[in-house]
């Protein structure tokens, strides 16, 4: 795949719910094809930042630009063709098969009247192959393990064809092997040229799989850089308020 990832520029971004500042003055530039992980304690504003970035909420101040174009000037369907978001979990009301779920990723491309075209079917097949779950295509999703389900959602995002893949805690509920499997998948997506942005709680895994970490705390961006730089013992103590020895890989 020769397609290049999406470039994101966030400048002076602030978000306020009622009297609470959820995000304050965030400046963040993510280059095309980068793989970046947002880390930080609960309530630091990681998910809110993702919501601003994907156009789900409008920031109170500042703004987001995709490839230099202001996000609020881009239509929702166009955003959906540029940014694929992997949900951290989905409640399905009906029994569905893997390929049917992955097919839903093609919604932003489908013609409202004619439905899925050959191109859509090819994209679904390619996504299943890229994520390595072709053999699951006919299975009912509820027969799958949590790890397999997460891969199905990643495949749906790949089928969606976004040049940026966003994941909010993709490894929650997964055992170590499946966490590694999902995160290795993300490195392959950046190998394809896509930009990948994830939120993770597991600091050692984040440090291992992402060349660049961004640490948020209390709605502010407190550190941005290589894992060893960002996750210094002093910062672990300040931000997470735990003894840095609990993060052995970094100690």
């Amino acid at each position: 795949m020769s397609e290049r990832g999406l470039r994101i520029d966030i400048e002076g971004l602030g978000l306020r719910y009622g009297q609470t500042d959820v995000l304050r003055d965030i400046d963040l530039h993510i280059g095309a094809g980068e793989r970046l992980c947002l880390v930080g304690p609960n309530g630091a504003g990681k998910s809110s930042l993702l919501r601003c970035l994907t156009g789900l909420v409008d920031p109170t101040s500042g703004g987001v630009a995709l490839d230099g174009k202001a996000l609020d000037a881009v239509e929702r369907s166009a955003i959906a063709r540029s940014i694929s978001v992997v949900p951290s979990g989905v409640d399905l009301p009906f029994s569905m098969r893997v390929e049917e779920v992955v097919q839903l990723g093609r919604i932003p491309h489908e013609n409202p009247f004619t439905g899925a075209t050959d191109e859509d079917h090819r994209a679904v097949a390619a996504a299943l192959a890229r994520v390595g779950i072709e053999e699951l295509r006919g299975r009912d999703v509820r027969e799958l393990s949590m790890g397999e389900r997460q891969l199905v959602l990643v495949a749906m995002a790949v089928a969606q064809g976004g040049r940026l893949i966003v994941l909010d805690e993709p490894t929650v509920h997964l055992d170590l092997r499946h966490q590694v499997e999902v995160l290795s998948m993300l490195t392959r997506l950046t190998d394809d040229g896509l930009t990948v942005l994830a939120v993770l709680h597991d600091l050692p895994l984040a440090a291992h799989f992402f060349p660049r970490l961004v640490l948020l705390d209390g709605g502010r961006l407190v550190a941005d850089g290589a894992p060893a730089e960002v996750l210094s013992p002093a910062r672990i103590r300040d931000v997470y308020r735990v003894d840095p020895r609990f993060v052995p890989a970094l100690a």
Partner: protein
Amino acid sequence: MTTTDLARQHAPVRRGSLEALRRRPVVLGLAGLLVLAVAIVAGVGLGTVHISPSETIAILAHRLGWGAEETWAQSSETIVVTLRLPRVLTALIVGLGLSVAGVTFQGLLRNPLADPYILGTASGAALGAAIGVLIPIQIAWLGLGLVNILAFVGALAAIALVYRVAGGGGRSTMTSILLTGYAVGSMLAAGLSLAMYLSGSQLRQIFNYLLGSLAGSDWQSLLIGLPIVITGTVLILARARSLNGLLLGDDTALHLGVDVRRERAILLGLASLVTAAAVSLAGLIGFVGLVVPHVIRLIVGPNARVVLPLSAIFGGAFLIIADLGARMAGELPVGIITAVIGAPIFVMLLRRYRTGYQL
């Protein structure tokens, strides 16, 4: 080993005719049209006066302007054209409309237990019809009785009230709309009980409406109801994509480019309009809008683009056949027949499929 081999190896139970239909839903659609055609001919031909299938087809073809020598008695043609055909076509439209509305409500509410009546339309229509029965003056407009008109208005008023109270235009979830629908429905049902209590000798007329019947069908009301149901159905079909996106919940639908708030309002409005037209034509006929979409979904999977047209075809055929059964059993209310057939199917489905799960 190729992918297909792997798929077979991993899914050994997925063979047989049902799986073939799932892969080729068009075949199921054609089969449905055939069933529908047979149901129409049977529905028109069978009754206290039997008219043979060939004669029925000849009369229908004649009416459609396809030649055919007139070899039948004039009385047969009268029975077919003025009595049975409007009734069969009304059954078709009502069954089709309720099934399409059922698919839409189930998808919108992300709730497999939803049916077209879930947001208070049934109680609203029933209260409207009861008021129509109780008002002592006879008003007819475009050939529609006051009962039909007030049932239609009542159904739409109920859903509009639910939508307003739940704040449907804002950030309200479908759960709050569902709960509001239940509350408003209960309130309207109380009004209906009061109307029935006060109705005296007219109780039976209200009761007939509640049970649902196609006995009162005629061309005039059909020709008013038909365009509403068909237009609503076509417009819903054109939004199948949004309905599919909404299966995944609001946030994921937004991420897939679905304007959730707008699409939800439009789909809710269209499905309510179709439901209102159906209940004003035939009263409250249960289980069609609940069971038909489920059976179809069970065979072809949840893709609304496939489920909607198939539910329309089979829903129409099902109600024609149920109404035929009702007539053969000496004019039982058709709602009884659909419930007798539908309830066991529904229980069976519930036992096989638990209502939702995590992915």
